[in-house]
């Protein structure tokens, strides 16, 4: 993510989700894992103007870039939180990238991965660990 910090900010970090250290969230339902970026990520980016997502059918490895998100000011890679095949892509974001700012956990979702290794979800950060991760980065900046 872009360097910098909010001096005063509150982030909507949801307990029912898991998070990557690169600020993606995942929602696992069976072997289907929906992926988006967290409220922290969208606030750090600011106004999102462009989202580039992979084609359905592409295989991704955990930790590998699967797309790109651009705000007015910044370009950031999107990283696959788990390995598997991309089975759905939120094509609507091509026309309405601002959905990432407005509803990052809903309409701003990005892809669905059919995961090949469910344990990768368990290895992601839970809500408390992710909040701690955000706090540590803010502290580093100070």
């Amino acid at each position: 993510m872009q360097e910098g910090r909010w001096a005063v900010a509150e982030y909507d970090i949801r307990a029912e989700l898991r998070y990557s250290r690169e600020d993606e969230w995942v929602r696992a339902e069976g072997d289907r894992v929906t992926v988006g970026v967290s409220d922290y990520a969208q606030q750090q980016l600011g106004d999102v103007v462009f989202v580039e997502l992979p084609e359905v059918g592409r295989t991704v490895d955990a930790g590998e870039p699967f797309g790109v998100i651009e705000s007015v000011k910044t370009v950031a890679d999107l990283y696959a939180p788990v390995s598997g095949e991309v089975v759905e892509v939120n094509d609507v974001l091509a026309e309405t990238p601002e959905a990432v700012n407005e509803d990052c956990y809903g309409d701003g979702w990005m892809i669905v991965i059919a995961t090949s290794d469910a344990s990768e979800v368990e290895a992601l950060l839970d809500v408390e660990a992710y909040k701690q991760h955000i706090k540590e980065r803010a502290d580093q900046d100070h």
Partner: protein
Amino acid sequence: MSSLQRTPLHGVHLELGARMVPFAGFDMPVQYRSIKQEHAAVREGVGLFDVSHMGQLHFSGPGAVAAVERLVSCRVTSLRVGRVRYGLLCNEEGGVVDDVTVYRTADDALFLCVNASNVEKDYRWCVRHCGDDTEVRNHSAETALLALQGPGSEALVAALTDLDVGALRRFRFAESELGGLPVTVSRTGYTGSDGFELYLAGAGAVELWKMLCDRGAVPCGLGARDTLRLEAALPLYGHELDDTTSPLEAGLARFVKLDEGGFLGAEAIRERAAKGPTRQLVGFEMVGRGIARADYPIALEGRPVGVVTSGAPSPTLGKSIGLGYVPPSLAGLGSRFDVMVRDRPIEAQVVETPFV
């Protein structure tokens, strides 16, 4: 990060919840709420920027005017008291040391407003090239600078001062009081919209900021400052200009007194001009889908031919725009080339500048 400098308004930015970033050695607000909203505030209403990180170098003494005339590319002797000109400090090779605004404050006194990243370099450069009859002082640390920009600025300033603000035309300035604070009111800016730059002692900065915000000015960060100046095709030092760029290649010939003998770098600039430029700064918009960013290569039929110096989505136009250096053969309006966006060629087209 602990070594970052702070402007007198640093605490205000934190209170407002700005997102802070390091910029030119200062901890500065990049945005408060949204770059798009802040950008729109300046184009449609009135926005307020803390640009106290910028530097001010003051020249005084019997040799001051002649010294600055030798230092900068624009004409200085003919600059009347109360007027401002844009110019360049150039090195002996004709490259740009900095781009500056020159304020004539008295018959024998001027100051230069310079980029934050270049204050120390500029100060040393100026001292080195001034004689004993000119005193050069760096007032950057004790001077605050607020930029009030947008079509609503005039009414806002007028409400706080006795100065006839309507009569203060573009590129003029006056000493005045705003809400009781002594302020140098300059009708200048870096956004492409009407507006004022307000110089004052650092101690009054918070009070002035609050006065202006209470009357409707929208706090704006460096993010909006960048998209605004890009739409206006105003160069940013370190992007369009650096120690190796010629002002002529950057399209700044009208700020360069080429026909006369004397300013540092003039000879080299004339020599380069005589040989013909090897590259030219152009404004372009993206034809294909993609956003140009600084340092992306510009290519033609797969061959690298230039480089993007600035690029962003234009909030006003709703398209992606940029500035970049290309060979003169590709500099004409309507010329097409590719911007390499993450190694993929995306078509772009040269358009008129300013973009808005």
